[in-house]
């Protein structure tokens, strides 16, 4: 277990380093950052000035190492637009996105796990068909269009829910559904496949033969084993949702990280963009690492191989 954990941790660090190189190199994607920063109609002198002040005249590798060391120390640079510290803005916005992500994941799990279990108990039944239809339709629906449709129904036609903002928990209902439904097909399919495999295994037959109550067999014996891969999938999907929340947050004007990312992209605020990409990537790396550890802890077979 320890060897596995150390190995897995080493890979995570390497991935994080590679991601940091990639997010840093975004700076040079548009050409010379000094020209971009100096703005239109800047004289050669101004550009040189910017280059010196921001340190763009130094070798790129030094700039990167500096940036990385600062980032490790919690200093993600200065926003070009907001005139404030990038890190503090990001950590101010992060909780909102986390809450949204958690609600969306909660919605997805509450919908997909029971459906997956029911579908596995009665394959090819009506409920299996319904679950399959939800999965197929869910995968095909553009999230932004789904979000707009939700607004049309719940806010305009029935006047039940507020459209924008983060004032109360009511504000989070539609964004959570819009963000979470995209995850449901994957979780549902995995739950269904896992449950079907477990239900046909020998130990379930034994448990049934012993005369245990069907519910006990189903939930205590079967679901516990079938749910293991779902846990790691959920962690991975949570990471995806934080990255994907940019569309949903923009539509519902939720003041989270995704909205911040969109604003920064429109303002060409490079340090902010870099930092957001880095933070979300590192968060994803941490999540997958934790998921792998949890998996190895729950399932001894992974540890051994």
């Amino acid at each position, binding site marked *: 277990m320890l060897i596995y954990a150390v190995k897995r941790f080493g890979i995570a660090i390497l991935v994080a380093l590679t991601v940091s190189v990639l997010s840093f190199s975004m700076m040079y*994607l548009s050409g010379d950052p000094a020209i971009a920063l100096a703005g239109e109609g800047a004289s050669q002198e101004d550009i040189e000035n910017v280059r010196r002040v921001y340190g763009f005249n130094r070798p790129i590798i030094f700039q990167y190492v500096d940036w990385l060391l600062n980032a490790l120390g919690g200093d993600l640079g200065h926003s070009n637009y907001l005139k404030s510290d990038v890190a503090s803005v990001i950590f101010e916005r992060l909780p909102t996105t986390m809450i949204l992500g958690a609600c969306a994941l909660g919605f997805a799990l509450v919908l997909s796990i029971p459906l997956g279990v029911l579908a596995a108990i009665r394959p090819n039944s009506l409920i299996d068909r319904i679950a399959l239809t939800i999965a197929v339709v869910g995968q095909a629906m553009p999230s932004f269009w789904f979000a707009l449709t939700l607004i049309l129904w719940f806010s305009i036609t029935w006047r039940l829910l507020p459209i924008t903002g983060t004032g109360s928990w009511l504000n989070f209902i539609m964004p959570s559904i819009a963000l979470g439904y995209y995850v449901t097909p994957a979780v549902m399919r995995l739950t269904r496949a896992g449950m079907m495999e477990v239900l046909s295994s020998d130990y379930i037959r034994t448990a049934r033969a012993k005369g245990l109550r069907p519910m006990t067999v189903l939930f205590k014996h079967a679901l516990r084993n079938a749910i293991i891969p779902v846990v790691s999938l959920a962690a991975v999907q949570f990471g995806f949702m934080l990255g994907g929340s940019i569309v949903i947050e923009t539509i519902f004007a939720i003041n989270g990280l995704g909205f911040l990312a969109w604003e920064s992209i429109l303002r060409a605020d490079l340090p902010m963009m870099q930092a957001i990409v880095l933070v979300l990537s590192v968060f994803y790396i941490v999540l997958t690492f934790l998921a792998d550890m949890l998996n190895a802890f729950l399932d001894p077979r992974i540890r051994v191989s």
Partner: protein
Amino acid sequence: MSDAVSTERPAAVAAEILEPSPGVLMRRRIFGHTGFMIGVVVLAAIFFMAIFAPLISPGDPYDQVLSRKLIPPIWHESAKATWEHPLGTDLLGRDYLTRLFHGARISLLIGFAAMLISGVIGTTLGVLAGYFGGRVDMVVNFIITTRLSMPAVLVALAVVSLVGSSLTMVIWVLGLLIWDRFAVVMRSATQQVRNLDFVTSAQAVGCSTPRILFFEIMPNIANSLIVIATIEMAHAILLEAALSFLGLGVQPPEPSWGLMIAEAKGMMFFDAWLIAIPGTALFALVLAINLLGDGIRDVTAPENRN
């Protein structure tokens, strides 16, 4: 007794002769698969719309007639609805049906091109990792993990905003971003095939590695490749729509479906059909591609159906 035998045997032989050929069985499976047939029909219709867009459109996708803006579609009980504009007109008086037809071209073009680029990258990485294993596998796995840890939508938006957005740029950015599933699936498919007897015998006969990869491995993983290709094409189309919706994909006045929804967003509370029409088109296209992919999987490899 002897009578019974003599009548039974011809019957058994006849049953064997009457057993449908594999081709007939395949055709039965194809036509019996409702999802596959729906996918094929819808996709064919959208392809037809895209290819013949200039011929079947009632107008020009860029022609603005401001005096005729926001005409509702014909099923609306409004005096303004007219057969001249079956789906009405948008905020700038452009015929909506025409823009919908031309939008199909953009969606299909971007979806197909981005899928090709990502398919080449992902399949190369996946097949190499699966065939060689060991160090190559480790490196490829590392590249896949790195790619997965970067948020795709965000990176796509950032890159497009930095290098400037155009149709070609969107295709390349998407193609370079969404190869991960190709790599993951091709890798495991190759791993399953590479230890089979025919690969070993090809190695024993002394075939070159490229020959083995192209003529022994590839034909045997083509099934999963096609299925992933449909999934990724759908994925690329959805991402393009999302990028265009956020204003960083296809640029106006091009008629992208995502962009049409974005342009109509301000009017959606008064004229909901403005977002309902392109949204439904997008949904139908992606659904059809997914159904086609599921259908191909079921028809070519029925044993994998769950």
